[in-house]
């Protein structure tokens, strides 16, 4: 709902929780003192991004589902709501978050999920976090609590600030509430496996992705291609019959891939996340590779220098993130001059003093 039609300042009245009021105050004070804040939800993704210092600003206490009406396909929750609680609520009504968010630990929150912008195995088929965000509330670096977007499917009023928050790692604002599109859970799912090389797997995944098949996940672990089909019972059955392969009955398989509990992703001391056009040929990366998203996501386990790994995506149109085991600095792919200038300007528009997670994404912002 939009109480603002009566009142232009949503910081007024009883609508705003104590948490929001205190956070606004804390941010204003930090701004005056020019003392950086480090925003923290469940702390499950503290490994992700550049290492930063700062007074912690905890969002975990700001939890709870604010609004959920299954027939609207929308759920609105406070940022500190545990992902597990939110997904359990949706499951009760036969719905789910389409992007299959990774947990990386039981304490993951919806706010952290949106701020980190990481999506799971279903992403190429059902959309990414950013595709499903419909609206958000946030506190900017001025300590102002702002509302953008809404709870409806289509909304083109004003700039799409809600989606801009996705993946910004808290550098533009402290997310306090999010509205997300949800979808019905598929009635049926099946996983198939094929003994394919990396090259064969990339070719097959992209061939199938160009056909009207009910694909919902793909991965290649070095030896085998795994593929999940989801949809109506008859739809999944007929696609499985058409594709062949070996049927895999392991309900936890995709959750292990999603949460990096899969042995390849769990044990790698240094792990890179390479995002490339899906049909890109096998890359000449050092170490070993685990593929997802029709070939669009390549996890590379290697302790080779950053420069060497980044060179491997040069010319592909993609980028490389030093996901785990990094040096705390050279995490995200460098931006060109024009792009970096725009990043600086946008950061300044939200957080001119630079107190919100400064340096978490890039040193300059």
């Amino acid at each position, binding site marked *: *709902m*939009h109480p*603002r*039609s009566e009142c*232009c*300042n*949503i910081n007024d009245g009883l609508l705003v929780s104590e948490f929001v009021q205190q956070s606004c105050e804390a941010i204003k004070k930090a701004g005056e003192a020019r003392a950086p804040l480090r925003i923290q939800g469940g702390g499950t993704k503290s490994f992700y991004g550049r290492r930063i210092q700062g007074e912690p600003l905890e969002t975990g206490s700001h939890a709870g589902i604010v609004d959920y009406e299954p*027939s*609207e396909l929308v759920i609105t929750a406070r940022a500190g709501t545990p992902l597990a609680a939110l997904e359990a609520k949706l499951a009760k009504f*036969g719905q789910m978050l389409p992007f299959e968010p990774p947990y990386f630990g039981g304490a993951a929150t919806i706010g952290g999920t949106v701020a980190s912008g990481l999506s799971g195995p279903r992403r*190429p088929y059902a*959309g*990414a976090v950013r595709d499903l965000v419909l609206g958000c509330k946030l506190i900017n670096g*001025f300590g102002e609590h*702002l*509302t953008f977007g*809404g709870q*409806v*499917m*289509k*909304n*083109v*009023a*004003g*700039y*799409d600030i809600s989606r801009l928050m*996705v*993946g910004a790692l808290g550098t533009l604002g402290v997310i306090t509430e999010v509205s997300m599109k949800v*979808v*019905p859970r598929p*009635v049926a799912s099946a996983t198939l496996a094929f003994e394919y090389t990396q090259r064969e797997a990339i070719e097959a995944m992209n061939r199938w992705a*160009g056909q*009207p098949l*009910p694909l919902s996940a793909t991965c290649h672990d070095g030896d085998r291609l795994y593929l999940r089909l989801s*949809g*109506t019972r*008859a739809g999944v059955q*007929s*696609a499985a019959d058409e594709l062949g392969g070996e049927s895999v009955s392991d309900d936890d398989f995709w959750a292990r891939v999603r949460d990096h509990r899969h042995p390849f992703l769990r044990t790698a001391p240094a792990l890179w996340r390479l*995002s*490339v*056009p*899906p*049909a890109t040929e096998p890359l000449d990366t050092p170490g070993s590779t685990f593929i997802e*998203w029709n070939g*669009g996501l390549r996890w590379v386990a290697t302790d080779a220098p950053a420069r060497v790994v980044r060179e491997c995506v040069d010319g*592909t*149109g993609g*980028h490389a*993130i030093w996901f785990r085991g990094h040096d705390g600095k050279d995490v995200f792919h460098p931006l*060109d001059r*024009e*792009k970096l200038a*725009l990043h600086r*300007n*946008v950061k*300044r*528009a*939200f957080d001119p003093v630079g107190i919100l997670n400064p340096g978490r*994404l890039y040193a300059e912002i």
Partner: protein
Amino acid sequence: MPATPKSLRTRASVAADLSRLLPNCHLLADEESLRPYECDALSAYRRLPLVVVLPETLGEVRTVARYCRDKGVPLVARGAGTGLSGGALPIEDGILCSLAKFDRILHIDPANRSATVQPGVRNLAVSEAVSHLGLYYAPDPSSQIACTIGGNVAENSGGLHCLKYGLTVHNILKLKIVTIEGELVTIGGDALDSPGYDFLALLTGSEGLLGIIVEVTVKLLPIPESAKLIMASFDDTGSAGHAVGDLVAAGIIPGGLEMMDNAVIRATEDFVHAGYDTDAAAILLCELDGTPEEVTDDIARVKEVLEQSGCTGMQVAKDEAQRQQFWSGRKAAFPAIGAMSPDYYCMDGTIPRRKLGEVLGRMAEMSRRYGLRVVNVFHAGDGNLHPLILYDANRPGELERTEALGADILQLCVDVGGTITGEHGVGIEKIDQMCVQFDSMALSQFHAVKEAFDPVRLLNPDKAIPTLRRCSEFGGMHVQRGELKFPELERF
């Protein structure tokens, strides 16, 4: 170059400057040639720009941008001019930059299922160019024969199938933009995500205020193997509205889900003979797509739900020809209404689906109060309403009454938790209603974002985001002295 004061800037001097800077560029500067550019599809607002420039190369676009920046001249980019909110309305002392000559499909990548096109390529032309590969571009605004991809990105266009397949923002990978500084910047990338902030989302739907879109890479999807359409009749619009919610709650996401009320059914039936039930108070057109097996499963479930939702009659299109015939009525709805009334005004609010029945009822009441007919044809699945107010501009005061009724309808959409625009954009048309939807802090944040990309505020100025002063005059927002907290920030 020093900025020229506005009063000294003339059509002749700007035309002379541009023809010197861009000797090979098509330039229009006489009133007769400028006339076709005086408005977009919101023809109630018309203005002549100083000049129209039709660049053909990136270099020319960059030169135009730099010239505008240096001389302080407003710059409005335009595609096919099919927009419904006045986003491409020229500025009187500004330059209109038509991207019509950027009309080439640059690259089709079947393996990665993407296509890179220039902004002036028509929406439908993309799907036509890749159909032989079994692929298509999903967003399909009703104007897809004419509207261009650049305009689609600027407005974040939707269409008949966005509940399932998303809007423009969900279906593009990469943009190239020219900033007001004349810099060429790549936004997004060829992979599914890109480093840094999601500027792709920020630029999509930014209505030409942040940059000029000069290249777009779109995602392509496999053409569904099978599609079936059900037409369902209802004897009151409220139950049709509830049926929409029931379908979604039952776990069905139709490819398309459209609703038409009796007035529209009759108008389109007279116009194209689509085979609609003219006795129904409302009909739903519900399309299911996917593999043949999926569609068979879904059709059975949809029939079950609709029966329980009080549907009075149901017809599944028996073949592809009949499916096209059923759709032809929906697609011809606006022209059909154009034939039954001298003028109509198309609204574009979105509301939570559960409020459909209530909002339709309250609009009928407003329609009686204003003495103006309101008919409805809309994207029911998304809750995206397109109430059409029928009026006659030749009757004194009727346009003003129509606009007042429109404003009331948008206020109603916001009051029930919705938005003033689902897909047509704010432009010049709904700029005052932005004051209803957003508070002063959010609007200030929008202005700060604008300045991050366009510090001189020359790109499509005075559109999409109202100044605080305008809101205060409109009365939708109570900006009081001393309330604004950061006096050091420029507020406009």
